[in-house]
């Protein structure tokens, strides 16, 4: 195996949390609110279904090929040629998706805090820091998440507590005014974020305590669901009917915090903590891309690829969209089909074929 490190199932679960949440609290709440209005807090619950399904598929596939990542076993499932094609689709997908993530990160930082700083510099510096982590391998990323995620969660909870005085619970009424559909419609976008749980297909082979992996993968989905639910309901309580009017509702809610005239305008602090979460998300996607490419090309070491792919990522981040509006539109329309088809539908086909092959083999015996 190219990666010699081992992680624990708990570490994998912790790692997945920021890998989903980090960008899911930027543009997504506004899109959800646009469709679901006051029911936006229900949407994550529907959305998480995709997460559970994806985790289930990834684990079943993993059971067939416990030593391999999806890039490797897709060759075994659909043959060498088609396997390479599937692998290529995955790699291109993760390259592009990571480009989008980095762009989201850059747009957020530049739009809110560093208006005159060149976007490319903001993104490039982040990619460089991520590259250092990716070079360290899966163990280092896992350890970093163990250090960072508790801090991120504490900060989220802390800010929710600070916002309690400004919450207006009547903002969520009437519940399900137009039935269940607005909330399901609002779930279409966030559910594609949950499909990113397919990333665990790249990490499962390196999990040491295999008996716990299902438990922690599911726990991770639940944790993401709970966090999104909490964030959405907080934003709704604070901003109410104007949630959808803000590009970054969570940030706007944080701006509103004011305790005793002293704890005010803490958004820069929140930004800094959020950057740590984004760092983990980008690192995880970056690592998956680099590792997958090395496996696809059958290299003996993936570290060679780290810096070159960093430049590639930067290029993709710049090319992804000409401006924030288009990026937001892309996220609001194309992304659910795009993310789902690669991360949920292709794997489920793979799973079906793998099942059929296994059956054939058993019958031959």
């Amino acid at each position, binding site marked *: 195996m190219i990666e010699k490190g081992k992680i624990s199932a708990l570490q994998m679960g912790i790692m997945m949390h920021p890998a989903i949440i980090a960008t899911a609290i930027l543009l997504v709440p506004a899109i959800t609110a646009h469709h679901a209005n006051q029911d936006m807090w229900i949407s994550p619950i529907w959305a998480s279904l995709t997460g559970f399904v994806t985790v289930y598929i990834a684990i079943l596939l993993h059971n067939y090929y416990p030593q391999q990542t999806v890039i490797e076993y897709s060759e075994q499932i659909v043959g060498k040629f088609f396997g390479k094609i599937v692998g290529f689709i995955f790699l291109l997908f993760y390259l592009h998706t990571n480009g989008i993530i980095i762009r989201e990160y850059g747009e957020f930082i530049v739009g809110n805090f*560093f208006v005159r700083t060149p976007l490319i510099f903001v993104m490039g510096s982040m990619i460089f820091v991520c590259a250092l982590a990716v070079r360290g391998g899966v163990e280092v990323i896992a350890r970093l998440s163990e250090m960072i995620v508790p801090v991120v969660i504490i900060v989220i909870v802390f800010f929710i507590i600070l916002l309690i005085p400004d919450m207006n619970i009547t903002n969520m009424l*009437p519940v399900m005014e137009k039935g269940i559909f607005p909330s399901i419609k609002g779930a279409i976008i966030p559910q594609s974020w949950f499909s990113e749980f397919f990333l665990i297909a790249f990490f499962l082979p390196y999990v040491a305590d295999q008996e716990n992996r299902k438990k922690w993968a599911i726990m991770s989905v639940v944790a993401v669901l709970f966090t999104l639910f909490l964030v959405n309901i907080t934003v709704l309580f604070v901003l109410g009917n104007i949630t959808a*009017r803000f590009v970054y509702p969570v940030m706007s809610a944080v701006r509103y915090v004011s305790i005793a005239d002293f704890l005010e305008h803490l958004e820069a602090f929140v930004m800094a903590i959020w950057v740590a979460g984004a760092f983990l998300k980008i690192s995880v996607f970056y690592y998956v891309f680099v590792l997958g490419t090395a496996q696809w090309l059958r290299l003996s070491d993936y570290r060679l690829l780290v810096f070159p792919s960093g430049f590639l990522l930067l290029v993709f981040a710049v090319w992804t969209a000409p401006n924030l509006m288009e990026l937001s539109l892309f996220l609001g329309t194309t992304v659910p089909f795009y993310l789902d088809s690669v991360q949920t539908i292709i794997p489920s086909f793979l799973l079906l074929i793998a099942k059929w092959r296994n059956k054939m083999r058993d019958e031959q015996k």
Partner: protein
Amino acid sequence: MNKYKKRKKCVIYFFICVNCLFLSGCWDRTEINDLALVTGIGIDQKGKDVMLTVQLIVPKLLGAGTSMNGSNTGGGGATIVRSGTGKTLADAIANLQEKLPRRLFWGHVKAIVFGEKAAEAGIRPHMDFLSRNPQMRLRSNVLVASGTAKSVLELLPPIEQSSAEVMRELSKSEILMNATLKDVLQMLSDDTRAAALPMVKILPVEKGKTKLETIPFINGTAIFKKDKMIGSIGDKLTRGVLWLRNEIKQANITVSVKGVKGKITATIIHAHTQLIPKYEKGSWKMVVNITSQDDILLNATNFSLYNEQHIHRLEKELARATTARVEAALQKVQKEMNADILGFADAFHRKYPKEWNRVKKRWDEIFPTIEVTVKTKITIQRPGMNTTPQGIPAEEVEK
């Protein structure tokens, strides 16, 4: 081995390059002394143009000698006022920036004041700009000046640092209407599109002081419909509206009990208003349930409050006074101005979503016709420190 070393070298060179980039990268850096700290924004209509007035705090010079005196150290600052005009608010800012050596910094804006004329002309374009700017605080208080906004910002209050700070503190005390930028945005994007903002007036100058040495104070409420100001209501009516909006925090009620000389004042400890909408066969009704717990603040009568019957009478009297106040507010706001700043639409929306959605478009026609019943229940909790009225012989106290 060699290959590995080479790669390492590459990484190091790359790191050095990146570091150089970091050193040059100070695009958003501004020294604090190159900033003009804006504490208050005033927006006035000047013919067709917008006139923007900013109140800036100038940090007092603390140089060599002065820091030792100790008297003048603190963060005290004098405020100055500058104005700029333009077709839009953004234009006005550009115009204003031309006249300022330091960059305007909006991160500390405490109050946004609209001049009466600007408010009448419509505040939506300004609100959009204010909420779009990443530096602006959603928590800034929004107020309407009776007169020009500039005249309010110009004041040099003797107590607080700036007149903007005065307005913020007054808003925070929640005796009268209080609205932040976020609240205004919420009210304007509501279905009813009616908004209520606090009005500020200028306190008459004390004798012997210069014209500017006074403070603005909140007095009354400006009523907006579709982002345009349509009128204002006074102090008393504002309290009535606050009762209806369940926002009353601090209020005194003074009543006189029938057959007793003198007055009694009670203060509200806790108040709660519940709007109970009713929809029956095409007629819209609203029951307003007000409950409040009061303490006695002052008793100028010879009426002992250690008597349950007296307390009952007093409670009834207080309830009547409150109801009257609320009804007066209703008369003005609902019947005359037809501006639903009371939250009736929300209440109906929550309880009867289907019916409400049907009449959503015609709410303006329905709102004035709603039959409102006000039910008030006031309980007196504590009599303060005195048992029977002080200052009169025991025999004269009516037990």
